[in-house]
């Protein structure tokens, strides 16, 4: 086939966890060449990240060989990988918050002589200029936005002269504009002769940026395609192993009266910063209200305020009963709000941070919602167990058993358990944030279906999402937040990604091209 020597060649790699109980990768072989961008596709738990972690030295393969530039190598630690020029940008950034960008970048380097932060900062500036990054080397990481942190991560590996870059879901937390500037950087790297591997779930990005696509399914290598000669439909079919329809259904809203009326909702953070500034909107039963915004624009505060978990400064949230009676939700007991049928499933970045207890098993996590029910002094363990079994079956959660602690499941499966539990509560208002964050195509569509089912049952759905394509296809209306203010409410059937992006970055979409 190809006469060139691959930059990296992984041959027959097998990796198992828990002494063979979980097979993460089985007999996987991939090649990556210089001056090319390879997209690695696969569903959650298909072993993409595990495979890349073996390349970057986090894990060590049980079997198989790795060749770099035709020579067999042994990668035992991240340091070995970096010495070979392999750098990985992880999905969860590996940065020390209290240090500056420069300090993070030079961390662990064994350069000769005194620690010279100024010289390092200058070298960082040079790299920024070369590839088109924008970064202040002396800024502390905890003051940075997600995309700035990502920039630090990328420069960190470039500073170490890495010429094989692995990016694990780099666009999951970026705005469309930020994604574009990342892609420009990646194209510059490609032109510079670097080999780039990108893991992503967003098929339109795969098409836009990659040259080749390698597909994994259940830890096994399925096939390799040339991006320009194949279609997203083919990729998904390979990933899932059967035909999948790629269009999100959008049933018409039921046209029910408003269920929630939010007026002038204002929230201040503990540090005294305004997180939400006089936000007003209605949401009706039988509709999906999408909420868009750059991460940290007040989405979390908004949902938590409605759920009674957040102290508010002013405003009101009124819940309208079926018979038209109105009730104020602010300053109510969260338990009462929950009993009224308002559920919140928030998927935080670390997935386990809120809602699920990592060390408890699936059934016990179901019990977190049900333990107050029932009259006997003993808790009911049977029904939660049944409910857990149902969720595992319907959402295809990959777990050894119901008794497995949630911590041991892969991220996507954890999410299915969380969202599934909230929907199983048969709510009146379903609030979900980042429900499909990092989920694969198949599970994402399962969740979209669930949301649509709820909508058709007359549930008012508030859906906070990151993928604007999905947000536009799934929602009936889109509420855009910009730095805690209501930037606009758009008709999802008439808007497009650019307009939403513009509203996200500038108030009411003003100011022409967003910077």
């Amino acid at each position, binding site marked *: 086939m190809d006469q060139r020597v691959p930059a990296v060649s992984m041959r027959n790699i097998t990796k198992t*966890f828990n002494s063979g109980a979980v097979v993460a990768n089985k007999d996987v072989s991939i090649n990556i060449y210089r001056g090319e961008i390879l997209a690695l596709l696969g569903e959650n738990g298909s072993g993409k990240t595990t495979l890349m972690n073996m390349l*970057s030295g*986090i*894990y060590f393969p049980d079997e198989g060989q790795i060749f770099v530039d035709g020579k067999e190598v042994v990668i035992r*630690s*991240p*340091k070995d990988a*970096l010495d070979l020029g392999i750098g*990985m940008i*992880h999905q969860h950034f*590996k*940065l*020390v*918050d*209290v*240090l500056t960008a420069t*300090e*993070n970048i*030079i*961390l*662990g*380097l*064994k*350069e000769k002589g*005194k*620690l010279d932060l100024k010289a390092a900062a200058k070298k960082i500036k040079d790299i920024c200029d070369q590839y088109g990054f924008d970064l202040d080397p002396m800024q*502390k990481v*905890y003051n940075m936005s997600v995309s700035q942190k990502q920039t630090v991560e990328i420069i*960190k590996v470039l500073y170490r002269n890495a010429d094989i870059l692995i990016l694990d879901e780099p666009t999951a937390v970026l705005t469309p504009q930020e994604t574009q500037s990342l892609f420009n950087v990646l194209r510059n790297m490609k032109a510079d002769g670097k080999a780039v591997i990108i893991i992503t779930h967003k098929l339109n990005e795969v098409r836009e940026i990659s040259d080749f696509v390698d597909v994994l399914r259940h830890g096994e290598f399925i096939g390799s395609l040339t991006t320009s000669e194949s279609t997203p439909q083919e990729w998904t079919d390979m990933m899932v192993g059967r035909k999948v329809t790629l269009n999100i259904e959008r049933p018409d809203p039921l046209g029910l009266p408003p269920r929630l009326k939010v007026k002038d909702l204002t929230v201040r953070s503990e*540090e005294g910063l305004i997180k939400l500034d006089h936000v007003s909107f209605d949401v009706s039963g039988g509709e999906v209200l999408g909420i868009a915004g750059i991460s940290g624009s007040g989405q979390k505060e908004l949902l938590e305020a409605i759920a009674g978990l957040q102290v508010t400064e002013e405003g009101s949230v009124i819940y309208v009963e079926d018979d038209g009676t109105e009730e104020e939700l602010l300053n109510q007991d969260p338990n009462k709000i929950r009993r009224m049928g308002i559920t919140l499933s928030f998927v935080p970045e670390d997935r386990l941070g809120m809602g699920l207890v990592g060390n408890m098993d699936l059934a016990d996590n179901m019990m977190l919602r049900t333990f107050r029910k029932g009259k006997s002094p003993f808790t009911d363990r049977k029904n939660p167990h049944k409910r857990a079994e149902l969720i595992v079956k319907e959402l295809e959660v990959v777990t050894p058993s119901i008794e497995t602690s949630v*911590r*041991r499941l892969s991220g996507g499966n954890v999410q299915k358990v969380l969202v599934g539990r909230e929907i199983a509560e048969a709510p009146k208002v379903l609030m979900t944030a980042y429900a499909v964050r990092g989920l694969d195509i198949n599970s994402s569509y399962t969740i979209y279906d669930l949301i649509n089912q709820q909508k058709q049952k007359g549930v008012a759905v508030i859906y906070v999402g990151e993928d604007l394509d999905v947000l536009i296809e799934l929602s009936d209306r889109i509420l855009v937040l910009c730095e805690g203010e209501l930037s606009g409410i758009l008709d999802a059937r008439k808007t497009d990604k650019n307009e939403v992006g513009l509203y996200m970055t500038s108030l009411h979409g003003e100011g022409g091209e967003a910077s």
Partner: protein
Amino acid sequence: MFDIVSFFPRAVVQSVPLLCGSTGETITEKSGNLNLGIPGIMYVGAISGVIGSFFYEQSLKASGSTINTFLGIAIPMVCSILGSLLMGLIYCFLTVSLRANQNVTGLALTTFGVGFGNFFGGSLIKLTGSEVPSIALTQTHGCFVHKLPLAAKTGWFGKMFLNYGFLVYLAIIIALIAAYVLRHTRLGLNLRSVGEDPATADAAGINVNRYKYFATCIGSVIAGLGGLFYIMDYASGVWSNDGFGDRGWLAIALVIFTIWRPNVGVLASILFGALYILYLFIPTGANAAIKEFYKMIPYVVTLLVLVTVSMRKRRENQPPASLGNSYFREER
């Protein structure tokens, strides 16, 4: 009239065990290890030095020769360092290699260290067959308190700043070096990152376990020197069981007070030392009960400090983010 010229040196001498303990603990905590065994390690550092110099003095007595200043200092120093190093190694082996709970391990080491000290202290007292329950190592004490020749000639200045044994200066120099290394060197940067976020440090190619071992063992040795100083210099070479008191715990509180900065520790420990002996310098009349209230001051201040420190919000002033957690690379 409050006599500052005699008060200040006593405060300084009081401060040295606290300073050594807190410098050692700061270095340890920067690696993410919360070593609550420091009080025990200081005990072991003290008794190990005592054991060394006890047998040296015994051999001198047997041969009838006078003490060699160099050996008189070197023997207890080496013994003390070995003793506290061993404690540090036990702590590291349990918490880093076996990933045991740091709090439990530390508390166990403190209990063990105090018991170890009292056991061997008691044994040595038996050996001397003396009437009083203590061991006096006067010759060794003499070696440790050699003063700078200038001290006697420079009046109040000499009395306040030059009139100390070498361990006082050593403790201050160690604290200043530690502060410099932590802030301004590659080594310090790497160590801080290990304590903040070991996974990140690991990904950056830093050997996390090695840093944890070295920082904890060096920290233990420094803390152990504080125990040695207490016996050989402050207590005039007299070991008595439980004599060291709760200085180890104060040292750990001091780490928080100094927001993990050993250079601040130099002044903060002198302040604590001053509070510790304040009751001796304030006229309390015949009522001894009042004295007990003054003795409380360092502890009350510690409590107040903990309250105010925990209200501070700046990220730079927070404890190392991964303090108290063990690290395992392949944890899922």
